[in-house]
């Protein structure tokens, strides 16, 4: 059996990873087709004061907000924003963090030390605090959120790639590669990186969940996306003054965040179980 087939079989049997990926697939589906799926796509921005704060009904599945906008429709468009923010932020963190981790792990000199100490400084401050500070000083907007999240999340990738590269460096096959005359770049890209990729994938999945949560928190605190953007954190922030009477206003965006973050975490945990080579040996 080839490695790919084996991985697929284990994946489809892994309930955690499977459920997680179903959730994420529906999120992607929703985000892409928000314009088609939403019953009132124009409600993202247009207001209907006459229909304000209506409870969930067959007309408005998740009720309406204080401006009479359909919450369900706004959530669907919010999925798009959430996904874009987290994909760009995690992607950028990966692009910064992975090469730095490879270099720091492969070389053992002042340069590695410098990278890792900087990463440690970032890791020692809670990401949310750093992100609030950054987003706030850049001026609250979606762009600031993406930038703030990228700048604060890369050390996670660096840390993981660094640790695995240091371990791999001692592996005999890396030495064998060097004995064959592989340049350092070749060794890092063709031999170290593929062996680290499963950890990067797992970290990305967990990072997506984490990033979505932080982005929502920034939106909630006013340091991120701004009204009238249908971002989920912003929506929850707007709903505060109408609690507890308009319970649906806060509940549904909250549920959306909860389910999506859980989906990414489940997928991440499941992938870790599947991709861990130590466990893979048991399935020969």
């Amino acid at each position, binding site marked *: 059996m*080839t*490695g790919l087939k084996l991985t697929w079989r284990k994946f489809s049997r892994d309930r955690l990873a499977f459920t997680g990926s179903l959730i994420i697939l529906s999120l992607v589906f929703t985000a892409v087709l928000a314009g088609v799926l939403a019953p009132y796509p124009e409600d993202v921005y247009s207001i209907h004061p006459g229909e304000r704060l209506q409870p969930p009904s067959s007309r408005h599945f998740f009720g309406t907000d204080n401006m009479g906008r359909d919450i369900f429709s706004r959530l669907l468009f919010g999925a798009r924003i959430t996904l874009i923010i987290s994909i760009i932020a995690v992607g950028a963190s990966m692009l910064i963090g992975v090469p730095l981790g490879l270099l720091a792990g492969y*070389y*053992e*000199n002042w340069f590695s030390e410098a990278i890792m100490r900087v990463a440690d400084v970032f890791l020692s401050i809670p990401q949310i605090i750093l992100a609030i500070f950054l987003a706030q000083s850049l001026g609250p907007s979606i762009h600031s959120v993406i930038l703030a999240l990228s700048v604060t999340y890369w050390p996670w990738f660096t840390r993981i790639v660094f640790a695995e590269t240091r371990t791999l460096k001692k*592996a*005999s*096959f890396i*030495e*064998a*590669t*060097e*004995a*064959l*005359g*592989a*340049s350092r770049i070749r060794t890092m890209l063709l*031999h170290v990186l*593929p*062996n680290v*990729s499963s950890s990067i994938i797992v970290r990305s999945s967990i990072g997506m969940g984490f990033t979505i949560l932080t982005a929502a928190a920034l939106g909630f605190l006013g340091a991120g996306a701004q009204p009238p953007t249908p971002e989920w954190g912003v929506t929850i922030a707007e709903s505060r003054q109408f609690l507890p009477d308009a319970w649906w206003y806060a509940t549904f965006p909250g549920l959306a965040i909860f389910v999506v973050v859980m989906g990414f975490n489940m997928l991440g945990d499941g992938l870790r179980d599947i991709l861990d*080579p130590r466990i*893979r*040996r048991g399935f*020969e």
Partner: protein
Amino acid sequence: MDGSGNNVLLNVNRLTVHFHTDRGLVRALDHADLRVSRGEVVGLIGESGSGKSTLARSVLRILPFSAEIAEGEISLSGEDLLAMKESDLNNRVRGRGITLIPQDPFTSLNPVYSIGTQMEDIVRWKGSAGIGEGPAGAKVIEILERVQIPSPRDQIGKYPHQLSGGQRQRILIAMALLPGPALVIADEPTTALDVTVEAQILQLMKSLVLGKGISVLFITHDLGVASQICHRIVVMYAGQDMEEAPVDVLFSNPRHPYTKELLESLPNAEGTIRDIPGEVPNLIQPPPGCRFHPRCSRANNLCALVLPEKKTVAEGHRVRCLYPLEA
């Protein structure tokens, strides 16, 4: 073949290597000499920490970043390897002139690529002078047949973890022979294997190397293994090369006190095992002069003062000792 004359392929002279560590400077090699002639199999024998692997890695210049070649010369076919640029080393020496059979077959193949992928990569990248013309895939099959992998066509799609240790070691041997090297460095190639598999691998290496004009530097701590495949043996102790001699001479007529003690410490038919009194020295503060002198019954004050030059005591038999044993 005594390693002299124009037939010399690898020449290592007075090689001194230090490792910079947190605890201090580890003096791993101290003026070690080594010569390998064309077609010759030289055994490099020593305990753990005797510097044999450091010597081999110095030849390929794949020492860790913490290592420093403090003194000495290394040349391959008369070309100075220590002066060579990194890019030249990569293009002409590593994986071409010199290949390595690594120590541990279980961790020496990249787990994410199939056997066929890894071997075809070598064919395309390093050439296949060891095997002749043809498409890369066919060459891989042919070399796998030569190292006696059963039904190689079915094996090339497999990943390293799906193969046994013996099969993996055969594949590593095949990979080392593919580019048609002048010198193969075999770093304890059988240590990680079962005794029966070890015998098969040794047999295989003999059939592939002896009489084919390929030189081998065979690193091992096992005198029995070395005696089966090597023409000549170099005995190392604590970073110094103590004695070199043709295999039969070394076993029948050792002239260095350490070699004699080492041979006597082998388990014998009566089941008694002798050990060498004292301990392997700490290489951060090694004994001055001859590093074996604190444990040597023949040593006197002079032994602690100077590192003796290697003396030729017979044809191809050289000893680094002020007071060698009688013939």
